[in-house]
């Protein structure tokens, strides 16, 4: 499925009337089977944009469209949350089954599908554990398994690997790429790590500081499937440099503001 975000703005208003403009006039598309990374400094509205696409927030202006047919039995979107958002009262198995329950799958089918994803995300043997008994990296894998379980047409991932150590992150990136090669799910992937964005994505959408607006969309000229060897390839370095030059001044200003 294709996602079209058209001139979307979002302003949060609290009860006392104070308002925060998170996004201003953002337009972007994610084509079917495309992997798009969304990159921007902290607080620029990346999570907000994902929540808008997931239908968890309503835009203040503009609209979001899904184009293409949704095969029956497939969820339109599924989200991997920045803060994991696992249900503490559910075991790993039951957390992964949550979306399938809501989709009305019978128990046996649910259990089988959840087992597949637990296997896939390397959580085998931890089915009966509760989230508080897992490390941060494993919790995030449960979040990923829960999202993949519903076979979403669009997968929304909010800094899924930011809580992981560098080595685990590298391995998880490889795994995500493998899963994506197999399923070709449309992915919108939020990160503030330039290397990660370039390594994973077909295109990188760079957002400005708050209120977030699109600075540029940088295409990544790397072949698929990706391999670690590409991390030093000229196309990789070119894309990374381009993105860094785009956000350098933004990051400096953010730093200066924070210091002032």
């Amino acid at each position, binding site marked *: 499925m294709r996602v079209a975000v058209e001139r979307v703005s979002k302003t949060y208003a609290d009860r006392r009337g104070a308002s925060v403009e998170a996004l201003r006039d953002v337009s972007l598309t994610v084509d079917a089977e495309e992997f798009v990374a969304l990159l921007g400094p902290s607080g620029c509205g990346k999570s907000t944009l994902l929540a808008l696409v997931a239908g968890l927030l309503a835009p203040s202006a503009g609209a979001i469209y899904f184009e293409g047919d949704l095969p029956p039995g497939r969820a339109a979107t599924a989200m991997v949350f920045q803060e994991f958002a696992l249900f*503490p009262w559910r075991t790993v198995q039951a957390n992964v089954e949550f*979306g399938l329950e809501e989709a009305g799958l019978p128990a046996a089918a649910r259990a089988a599908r959840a087992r597949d994803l637990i296997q896939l995300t390397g959580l085998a043997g931890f089915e009966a554990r509760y989230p508080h008994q897992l490390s941060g990296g494993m919790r995030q894998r449960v979040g990923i398994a829960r999202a993949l379980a519903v076979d979403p047409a669009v997968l929304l991932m909010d800094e899924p690997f930011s809580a992981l150590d560098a080595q685990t992150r590298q391995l998880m990136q490889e795994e995500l790429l493998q899963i994506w090669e197999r399923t070709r799910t449309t992915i919108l992937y939020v990160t503030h790590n330039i290397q990660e964005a370039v390594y994973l994505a077909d295109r990188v959408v760079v957002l400005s500081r708050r209120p977030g607006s699109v600075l540029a969309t940088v295409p990544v000229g790397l072949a698929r499937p990706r391999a670690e060897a590409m991390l030093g390839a000229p196309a990789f370095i070119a894309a990374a440099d381009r993105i860094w030059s785009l956000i350098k001044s933004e990051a400096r200003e953010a730093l200066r503001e924070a210091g002032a």
Partner: protein
Amino acid sequence: MSARLSAPDRTHALERRAHPVVRVLALRGVVVLWELVTRTGWVPALFLPSPSGVVEMLASGELLVHVATSLRRLLLGFGLGALLGVSVGLAVGFFSLAEAVGTPLIAATFPIPKIALLPLLILWVGIGEASKVAVITLGVFFPMAINTYTGVRNADPLLIRAAVSFGAGRFSLIRKVMLPSALPMIFAGLKLGAGTALLLLVAAEMIAANAGIGFLVLHAQNLMETTKLMVGIVLLSFLGIVSHWLLVRLERLAIPWKA
């Protein structure tokens, strides 16, 4: 510096020892002292019956009728009150209309000492079992409703959003997010309610009953049967301990994710 010092343990002041022997001895000591005081006739049995006498009467089973009667009232009243309280608390916590109706009503009626309603309840449902069960139900209902409501309102908004993002509807949300979120508060309410229920049971049985432990205690006092009176008190404290213990066990079963 060439000296070699082992890292000091600075936690001495925080240490709290369990003193298991003292614990057992303290309780036994009091009972033994009590027995001695009564055996020697230092305190007349009319004022303080001996522990052995109390145990004897407990074992004889002649008071079982009263225990059974009280237990039935307690279980019915507590069960009804808990069920109603949790349901109302969930509804008021989740539906804005129920909240608009429920919160002012609960705020207005909650401060009434429930025992003051007993005469009214007797007038409405008669002096039989119903009035006693009703007063306990009322006493349990309020802490349960208020605790459940608070638990639901404090449910993590992130988890609610996560559930919604996976397609959860209202009733799924209530059952799969709100209810488990509120469970710790619900159990706190149950423990609170168990104490209230016992208090109301005794009060109601003292005011208007011809059976039950509360009746037993008051009646025994009228007849100067101090041993019987003491047995009633022991039975009541026993009920309190057992109900608390049961609730703690139940809580562990119901909330396995809280280690």
